[in-house]
């Protein structure tokens, strides 16, 4: 039953996985201070429940979830809240966002926490609230609140949980490492998630370039019994894209604009599975994660367990950063990660990798040349788009053709840019075009609304005019009737009535104008 399906496109960049020595976890230590953004997830920022000057213990709640699509935030160690203000956060736009600065006391005192004794007897709702309370958000990259994703069970019939241990991006080995050191935790986490979702089938997906992780996962799945299938498939970027992985494992495609849940599938990252297990079994909040620190500008690349909020500059120091050969600091992997301007930003729940390459390793791209429509991009595109056509239409700002060529289905994996022999930053064009379309849609909604308002007003005015005319006609008829009835012998009364009617209608007209 475990057939593997082929997906279109994909590329084979140098993997560079061995550089960060997958399978060993190093300790990044406790930095002097932590910077904790209130928004480390998709959704509303958490709302604060501490104030500057407060002393907090490790694991203590710092900010509560604000609304449904939000997650709480906990202190990763003990210390004093020294500032709550906008600070630079890891974001492609280098923006500032509200952060909490925690001065660590180095004692690492923690609150007491406890989890469920046996999750198998708990209701899904209880378990979801455990996961929600622990601040778990997707650790693969997007940071979607896990509890919200699990609530798909209420809306759609689900059959399959996929744990996405593909990690197809070059350099990154955080999931690889986690699978090697805590396979049992991942499998148990997966079983908890499956229990919540009410699904029978668990697929643990591992790309075939991670034999040690694959072996560990197979052993753990066997040890825990029954319902976990470890699946492996040939290495290719971007097999780990959620939509691509679903097609590889099931042969089905997530319909455009839809979610995996529409196919009865939910995908989770191995790190998220472990965080869910920790939340349910131990009541432990999510306060640290494994981060791959890699690139040839580091003397000691590796996988480090780091507290959330650790400034990247602290991590670079720990890993022996040599700035002389380096020009770029990348949050994430070389394919989809974004460049950071400053190393003063902290790591967050979604930080799986910090890449500091030498200039020789990942050279600054040369100027783009003309597109020769060679079509290598179309060969590489995992969504079967025609990137070369999208490029022309993006440059021409031709929205109609962009939509006809399904720009919205671009997952921005970067495979097209990677292969482009003319070094055209294709993905950048698509991002800009998507932004443009979004903006013009918003604009359209706004103009539709004002048109509706205008039309409603016109209609009302017409209605009022009509009503007035009817009234006038009625009055005139009444006057004439009256004149006809009694006025034949009395010309004076008739004249008065006529004058009165005339005056009325003149009055109406002036009201109308």
């Amino acid at each position, binding site marked *: 039953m475990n057939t593997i399906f082929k997906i*279109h496109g994909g590329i084979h*960049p*140098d993997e560079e996985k061995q550089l960060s020595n997958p399978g060993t976890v190093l300790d990044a230590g406790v930095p002097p201070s932590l910077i904790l953004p209130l928004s480390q997830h998709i959704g509303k920022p958490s709302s604060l429940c501490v104030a500057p000057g407060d002393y907090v213990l490790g694991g203590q709640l710092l900010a509560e979830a604000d609304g449904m699509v939000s997650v709480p935030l906990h202190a990763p160690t003990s210390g004093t809240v020294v500032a709550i203000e906008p600070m630079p956060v890891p974001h*492609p736009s*280098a923006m500032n966002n509200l952060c909490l600065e925690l001065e660590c006391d180095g004692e690492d005192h923690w609150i007491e926490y406890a989890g469920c004794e046996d999750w198998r007897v708990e209701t899904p709702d209880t378990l979801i609230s455990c996961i929600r309370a622990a601040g778990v958000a997707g650790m693969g990259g997007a940071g979607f609140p896990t509890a919200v994703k699990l609530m798909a069970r209420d809306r759609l019939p689900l059959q399959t949980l996929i744990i996405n241990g593909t990690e197809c991006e070059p350099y990154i080995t955080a999931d690889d490492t986690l699978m090697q050191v805590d396979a049992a935790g991942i499998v148990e986490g997966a079983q908890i998630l499956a229990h919540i979702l009410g699904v029978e089938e668990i697929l643990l997906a591992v790309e075939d370039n991670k034999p040690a992780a694959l072996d560990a996962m197979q052993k753990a799945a066997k040890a825990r019994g029954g319902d976990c299938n470890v699946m492996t498939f040939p290495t290719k970027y971007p097999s780990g894209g959620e*939509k691509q992985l679903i*097609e590889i494992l099931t042969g*089905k*495609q997530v*319909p*455009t604009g*839809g979610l995996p849940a*529409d196919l009865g599938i939910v995908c989770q990252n191995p790190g998220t599975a472990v965080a869910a297990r920790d939340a349910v079994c131990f009541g432990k909040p999510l306060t640290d994660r494994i981060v791959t620190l890699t690139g040839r500008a580091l003397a000691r690349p590796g996988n480090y367990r780091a507290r959330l909020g650790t400034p990247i500059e602290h991590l670079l120091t720990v890993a022996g950063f040599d*700035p002389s050969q*380096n*020009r*770029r*600091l*990348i949050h*994430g992997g*070389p*394919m*989809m*990660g*974004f*460049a950071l*301007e*400053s*190393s003063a930003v902290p790591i967050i729940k979604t930080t799986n990798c910090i890449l500091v*390459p030498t200039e020789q390793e990942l050279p600054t*791209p040369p*100027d783009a*040349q*003309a*597109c*020769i*429509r*060679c*079509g*290598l991009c*179309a*060969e590489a595109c*995992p*969504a079967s*788009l*025609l990137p070369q*056509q999208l490029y022309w239409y993006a440059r021409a700002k031709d929205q109609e053709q962009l939509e006809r060529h*399904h720009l919205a*289905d671009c997952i921005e994996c970067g*495979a097209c*840019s*990677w*292969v*482009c*022999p*003319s*070094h055209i*930053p294709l*993905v*950048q064009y698509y991002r800009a075009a998507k932004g443009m379309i979004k903006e013009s849609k918003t604009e359209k909604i706004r103009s539709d609304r004002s048109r509706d308002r205008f039309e409603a007003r016109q209609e009302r005015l017409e209605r009022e005019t009509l009503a007035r005319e009817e009234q006038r006609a009625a009055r005139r008829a009444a006057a004439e009737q009256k004149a006809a009835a009694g006025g034949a012998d009395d010309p004076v009364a008739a004249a008065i009535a006529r004058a009165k009617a005339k005056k009325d209608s003149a009055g109406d007209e002036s009201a109308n104008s």
Partner: protein
Amino acid sequence: MSFLRITSPHGHSPLNTAQVMQAVLLATIPGIVVLTWFFGPGTLLNIVFGGVLALVLEAIALGLRDRAPQRHLKDYSVLVTSTLLCIALPPYAPWWLIATGILSAVILGKHVFGGLGYNPFNPAMVGYVVLLISFPLQMSSWQAPRGLGEIPGVAESLTAMFVPASYDGVTMATPLDLLRQNKGLLLDDLFSSTPQFGQWAGVGWEWVNIAFLAGGVWLIYRGIFTWHAPLAMLITLGLCAAIGFDSGSSESGGSPLFHWLSGATMFGAFFIITDPVSGATSNRGRLIFGALVGVLLYLIRVAGNYPDALAFAVLILNFAAPFIDQYTQPVTYGHKPTKGDDE
């Protein structure tokens, strides 16, 4: 400290456009070697003279268009255009014929439309067609192959190029011409009675075609272009030839093998219709593009008036490429109509 801000992806494949062009140039070498063996140094001289002229014209055109020549000349694209055109020109052509061809290809075929990547027609074929229509006599005098005529030396070749009417070499009708002009002979009799025919097609030509086929297969193996257009063209050309073969009668249009190994077939299939800029862009589109070139090639060969038909077939299909693109968009992920999907 401040780092460079560059958008993803941060890595890049080792292949660049200049290397694509270099690979195409390299792949023409077997064909050029065989051409030179059978027809003498004329083709080589064409290529060298045409190449130098093309580089100069390209530099001037880039300068006029405010583009940095140093940077854009390095993409080798103009050398590909000039080399392909010069391979197609008759050896020992006068210099002004080559110059007119190069000028038409580089300026009219390429820069008038905005340079590399913006030309709707294959520049080399634009140059070729301008010459074919303007100078039909010079364009159809093709040197007799080795074994059937004297092969000129380098000095003689240079004189032929630069001194008007100095060269009185042996020119012969090509096998394609002979077949078209054949009125009374059975195909077998035509082959045995005419020295220009070799084992499968024309003497020399069959090996020229095999050499270009080899270069083309290497390019496909290198991933420079896909197999779709060439294969589709060869299949439809073969099918048309099979239909028109008429069991080798005096009315026969020639066998599939004859057409595959004659004239510009393999050169066209692998070096001309694979030009990505002026061709169809999706793989399905390339299949249609190649298939239609094959049909047109056959029709113009057997029913037309020109020595070969490739240039016209390609230019006509260049017109059609945007239209083909419009109707051959691949099915995007998530757009497949799924069976039993009630949404």
